[in-house]
């Protein structure tokens, strides 16, 4: 889903919101990471006091208590305050946190959005633990509590910006920021008109939307998709059989794009094939 963010220079950056699935997988990666960190802290604490006498075993407990507390509450905060504004899991999934206003992401916003995990994640979790531990008499009460707590957990499904409660209170949202490479331009600077030639009507069959869909198909170059698309296009524009679907599509793409871009220069943007 696209959201407007206009820079002070007056250009819309066209950000897209991260999907719930991506965010959930990032969160599970982070949970794993926290678990690994906790195990490391435990190992370090045990190693530190291995040779020490029995009376100083309390040091292990302190290290562990503090470590667990810091990891639980500050793992997300510390990582999101970094220059990439993303935790380990978010980086892996190619998403990041930004302020909804487009201003800079401040420390208080990061703290607010992550402290709210307490009721979004740990509260349902503790109700679950309670349900597992008790059962019987208090079962209904625990179920009620769980249902109430799940409301917070599933909050992002009930608003159009996919905001967690933490996002809502911090004025942030999570956007896609995957690493992108710039591929080559499919419009090659040689004249291929002699190979296949298309009439103006054939080139006018589609608009920009179809052109860019065709671009995606060509870039992914999956044989079945190419064959299907080629067959559909040839049917539509009344073109006979071709020996090689890919080169046909590639040349047709170049033809349509050259024509549409020329019109664009004259101020006529054709959004899709229905746009006459």
């Amino acid at each position: 889903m696209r959201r407007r963010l206009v820079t002070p220079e007056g250009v819309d950056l066209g950000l897209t919101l991260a999907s719930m699935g991506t965010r959930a997988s990032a969160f599970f990666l982070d949970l794993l990471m926290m678990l690994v960190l906790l195990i490391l802290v435990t190992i370090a604490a045990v190693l530190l006091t291995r040779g020490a006498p029995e009376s100083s075993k309390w040091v292990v407990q302190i290290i562990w208590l503090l470590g667990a507390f810091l990891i639980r509450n500050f793992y997300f905060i510390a990582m999101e305050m970094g220059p990439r504004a993303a935790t380990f899991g978010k980086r892996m999934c190619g998403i990041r946190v930004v302020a909804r206003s487009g201003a800079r992401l401040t420390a208080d916003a990061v703290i607010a959005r992550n402290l709210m995990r307490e009721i979004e994640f740990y509260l349902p979790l503790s109700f679950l633990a309670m349900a597992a531990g008790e059962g019987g008499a208090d079962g209904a009460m625990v179920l009620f509590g769980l249902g109430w707590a799940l409301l917070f957990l599933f909050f992002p499904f009930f608003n159009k910006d996919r905001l967690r409660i933490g996002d809502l209170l911090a004025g942030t949202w999570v956007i896609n920021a995957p690493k992108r490479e710039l591929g080559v331009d499919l419009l090659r600077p040689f004249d291929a008109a002699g190979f296949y030639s298309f009439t103006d009507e054939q080139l006018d069959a589609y608009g920009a939307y179809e052109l860019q869909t065709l671009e995606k198909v060509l870039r992914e170059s999956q044989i079945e998709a190419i064959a299907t698309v080629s067959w559909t296009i040839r049917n539509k524009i009344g073109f006979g059989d071709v020996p090689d679907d890919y080169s046909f599509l590639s040349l047709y793409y170049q033809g349509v794009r050259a024509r549409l871009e020329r019109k664009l220069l004259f101020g006529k943007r054709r959004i899709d094939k229905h746009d006459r």
Partner: protein
Amino acid sequence: MTGALSLRSEREEEWRRLERLLAICEKKSPRALDDEDLMALPILYRDALSSLSVARETSLDLELITYLEWLCARAYFFLYGVRTSAAGRIRQFVLRDWPAAVRALWRETIVAALLLIVGLVAGYWLVASDPAWYATFVPTELAAGRDFSASPATLRHTLYDSDSGSGLAMLATFLFTHNAQVAIFCFALGFAFGVPTILLLVYQGMMGGAMFALFASRGLGVPLGGWLLIHGTTELFAIVLAAAAGFRIGWSVVFPGRSSRLEAASHAGRTAATAMIGALVMLCVAGLLEGFGRQLITRDLLRYAIGAAVLVAWLLFYYAPRRPRLG
């Protein structure tokens, strides 16, 4: 040659350079760049933006447009996310943001403190009139033998006995992490319109009141005061602040006032979060006072004096008038 092709051939070198510089800045720090690169960064960013505008208007090359959108967004968030050094940020937090956030919550703080006092009085009154209430307010594991069946001597012992030295640090750590978790919970629950926070606050008060009633009935009221207040002034203040931060959130969600609900919520959330970090620092201090101070200092007067001095220090830190900042 058409638009996109010439745009690519003319500008691609610049985009690549911007990408490279951004990668260095994000992985290491802007200091890793030499002067020339540092000066070029904003110029390259504006070039990329203008390339994006041109590409959108003249080209239908989706690959090019998505790449430029990604590059510009990345550069935008880096360049406009002005950062100060960690030391500078901490300095600003302690000197300005933290007390300012606490001051901004003064109304909620008063309400929270009153609720705590109401709980305290109610707990005392109920237990004083009928000791059977005691078990309701103070869970047995927390009471640890401090109940109405205990002799005055045992009760006196719990107030003054000092653990062996090694246990103290452990106790301080445990108390800090436990209380901090409760405070964070109290804060987060504020979102549910503050109702759970009220309950938690009153309950905390009642527990204190019930204990007080028990000790007062054995003539140990004054020593218990010292035992609680040496760290209690800091700890209770921190819990009141955490609750106040929670109330601010709950209140702004229900009554957003003149701004939109979302805007009010995010404004309140950020102020409350700052105050909340302050409260956590206070709880850390309280844990140290409770773990070490209380066990090592066993004179009532000194306990009261420390408790009062710390409270005055906090009040001055938060509410003393400051010279207004210029500019």
